[in-house]
């Protein structure tokens, strides 16, 4: 057996008291490709980020070549031979390939021609067909990956971690990429490969580790796995959690009028000719893995993103063809999108709860010169804080001071003051404590009971199963399967999501 190059013993990581990785042990042999699989939020990325020095473990031990180490930064990990290639590459688009390769290791005087020649020789040694003088912004996804890999190898990386490397690649680029990984393995480089594409993991890896809910589930030789076993291990959680236990008992709501009809919607590679409907008085759940185009589709509907200019498909809201260039007209029509990234897109962190909630009403009106009265702000905030049980010292508290759950409730309140007819929740309980999850689920249920059309996007299967009256599964930019909530199981949904 090859020697162990990396060993992690009982490592854990918590973010503000919420465990992301719990007491996980993991090892990597020299010259092996090790696939790391699991649902979104299983802790794969956090585990590898600890390995690569991007985050520091809360507890546990990391050993490189049998020696205990602690990385304070990715540079230290790189010095120890561990590099990580992120899904969104960390290259500088405005620099050339050669400049990116030597970024961080420049000398006092740099001769551009010398850098280009050295880069060309190095890229050729790896059989990478990338021109060193081309700007990175002009490269395709696969070529950017190549430059990223070359940068890692150039720094004498013995371990390269790939986080979802193939999500943005075309089939041709993927084949090239796999050949490249195999060449690295032949040179003795160890590879950790995070992917949602099970076929890829089965075809390329030597060993597979599966994680679930931040815990290690199983590690075994790839030959011992097949697709069904992987799916079983990925989703085989116990559903004892109170929040997610009502799936079987809840009655399925009758569909009302078709509020939204998305027809052949397309946006680049992210959304590919997708079609689905959303009905009033129902919660329609959308499940999909990273790269399935769920968020992009929702953002096109809400006017945040734009579909393809030519033949980008159509969106009908209440049987009327709509095309929103910005979100405001969508809000005025009755469509609101509750973002998955509340910190960046959901609220004004330095503003008060009241101001944040009231800001939602501004989008409802087309006139920009409305007089804002403080009494109106207080009135609206009081009404919605009570309705959604936002817990804070007072309505004047800044949103940044609230817990994740209360922040999310503020974001929801800010959307609901817009009196929507269609509410799109994108990961409504991400980074939210257990108590608040239950409250947010109750809010979503009540909206559907009140006759609104509700679309919930979630990466967490129990949440989708618990909330939804009908379940849509997204894969590779389109809706590929629909389940009646009563007929759906975690295995069936996951099967549809990865096939």
């Amino acid at each position, binding site marked *: 057996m090859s020697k162990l190059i990396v060993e992690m013993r009982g490592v854990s990581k918590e973010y503000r008291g919420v465990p992301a990785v719990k007491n996980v042990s993991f090892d990597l042999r020299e010259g092996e490709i090790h696939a790391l699989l699991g649902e979104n939020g299983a802790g794969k990325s956090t585990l590898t980020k600890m390995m690569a020095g991007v985050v520091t473990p809360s507890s546990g031990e990391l050993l490189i070549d049998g020696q205990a180490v602690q990385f304070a930064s990715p540079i230290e990990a790189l010095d120890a031979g561990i590099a990580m290639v992120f899904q969104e590459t960390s290259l500088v688009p405005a620099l050339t390939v050669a400049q990116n390769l030597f970024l961080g290791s420049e000398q006092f005087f740099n001769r551009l021609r010398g850098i280009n020649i050295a880069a060309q020789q190095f890229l050729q040694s790896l059989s990478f067909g990338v021109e060193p003088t081309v700007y990175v912004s002009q490269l395709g996804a696969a070529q950017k990956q190549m430059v990223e890999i070359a940068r890692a190898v150039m720094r004498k990386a013995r371990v390269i971690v790939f986080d979802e490397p193939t999500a943005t690649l075309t089939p041709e680029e993927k*084949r090239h990429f796999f050949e490249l990984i195999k060449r690295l393995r032949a040179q003795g480089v160890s590879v950790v490969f995070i992917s949602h594409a099970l076929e890829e993991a089965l075809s390329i890896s030597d060993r597979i580790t599966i994680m679930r809910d931040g815990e290690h589930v199983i590690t075994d030789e790839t030959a011992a796995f097949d697709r069904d076993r992987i799916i079983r291990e990925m989703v085989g959680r116990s559903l004892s959690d109170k929040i997610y236990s009502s799936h079987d008992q809840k009655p399925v709501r009758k*569909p009302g009028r*078709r509020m939204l009809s998305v*027809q*052949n919607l397309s946006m680049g590679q992210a959304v590919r000719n997708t079609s*689905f409907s959303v009905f009033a008085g129902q919660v329609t759940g959308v499940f999909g893995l990273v790269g399935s185009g769920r968020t992009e589709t929702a953002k096109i509907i809400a006017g945040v993103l734009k579909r393809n200019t030519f033949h*980008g498909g159509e969106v009908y809201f209440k*049987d009327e063809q709509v095309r929103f260039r910005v979100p405001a007209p969508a809000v005025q029509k009755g469509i609101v999108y509750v973002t998955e990234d509340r910190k960046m897109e959901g609220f004004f962190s330095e503003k008060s709860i009241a101001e944040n909630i009231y800001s939602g009403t501004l989008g409802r009106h087309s006139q920009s010169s409305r007089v804002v009265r403080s009494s109106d702000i207080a009135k609206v905030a009081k009404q919605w804080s009570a309705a959604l049980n936002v817990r804070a010292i007072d309505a004047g508290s800044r949103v940044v001071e609230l817990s994740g759950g209360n922040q999310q409730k503020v974001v929801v309140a800010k959307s609901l003051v817009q009196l929507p007819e269609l509410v799109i929740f994108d990961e409504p309980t991400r980074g939210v404590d257990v108590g608040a999850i239950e409250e947010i689920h109750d809010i979503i249920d009540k909206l559907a009971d009140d006759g609104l059309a509700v679309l919930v996007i979630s990466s967490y299967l129990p949440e989708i199963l618990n909330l939804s009256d009908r379940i849509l599964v997204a894969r590779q930019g389109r809706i590929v399967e629909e389940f009646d909530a009563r007929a759906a199981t975690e295995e069936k949904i996951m099967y549809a999501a990865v096939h």
Partner: protein
Amino acid sequence: MNILRDLSDRFYGRGAYSVSVPPMDGALQPNHRLDAARRLYQGESPDNLCTLGGGFIFSDGAQLFTILDNEAARIGGHLPADVLAMCSFEGGVVLILADGTLWTGAPATLRPLDVDAKVQLAHATAAMMDADGSLIVAIGSSHNPAEDWSRDLMQRRSAGSVWRVSLVDGAASELASGLAWPAGLITLAGKIYVSEAWRHRIISLQDQSVVLAQLPGYPGKLSADGQSGALLAVFAPRSQLIELVLREPVYRRRMMEEVPQHLWVAPSYASGKSFLEPLQGGGVRQMGILKPWAPSRSYGLLVQLDSTLQPIASLHSRADGKRHGISSAIRQGGEWLATSRGSGELIAAAVAGTVLAGADPAAAATAEAG
């Protein structure tokens, strides 16, 4: 402004120029229920199912049939022409034939009735009895007879009309015109509704308001579902390819001039029967694997609508099935009966289990079907 918008939409493929098709999801989620249904009759082109007394009758060409002891039984003699539309009233039926004549009476003793010549009965697509005893007739198009529906679609006409005809003296009055192939009629709670095939919708005849739009196929005959809603026979599917063809006038004109009609790139009651049909060699390459593929020009779809004419359940025969071109349907006891023009069959599917939980509307509206 509208001209600019039209030019812009034409250039970008948006709005009226988009080639998008509504999805079959929700209550229209595909299944194989039509293919699993029991066969009651095999013929050429059964159509025009309607209830009569405690039983039912249907037409096949110029013949009327019923089913007795699981066997097809002919009723009456050979009619002078194929039956285009049929409806029943207490003790009798009304038939509209392809030769433009209207016959009424008991099935065994039918008599012709002279009808106002303004009504192009040879182009009739549906008929129903109104509460006042008059006949409501849908004329698909003033330009094309009922059997030439695909030509009317390819010509993108909106030349359909609905008429009220007195069964006493044959006098007729026009109720609506400019419709895009009206193909089905029903009365619910005193209001007349019409399925407008080429606009993929159902409208109220009184105020022309749209009650159901964005259907994924071409809606045909409507009938009562035996509860408070309706059954809608969708006789052909929409597809992106056909939507594209419908937006290409030059292509359509040449196709109609130069290609035999049964080989047009157009919807059909049945497809895949001849190697000469278009799209036999379609395919896409995914992950290096060639996947044979061709959009089907025919499909089987029967939709149950609630009292507000919203879909609540559906029965399908998909691209790999044969029971395509559903032309009429009724409820008979615990079964839905449907005629398939694609396979030439009369089929029966169990109603039980097809209605979604909680979907049975408690509305008190009474349904009177034609």
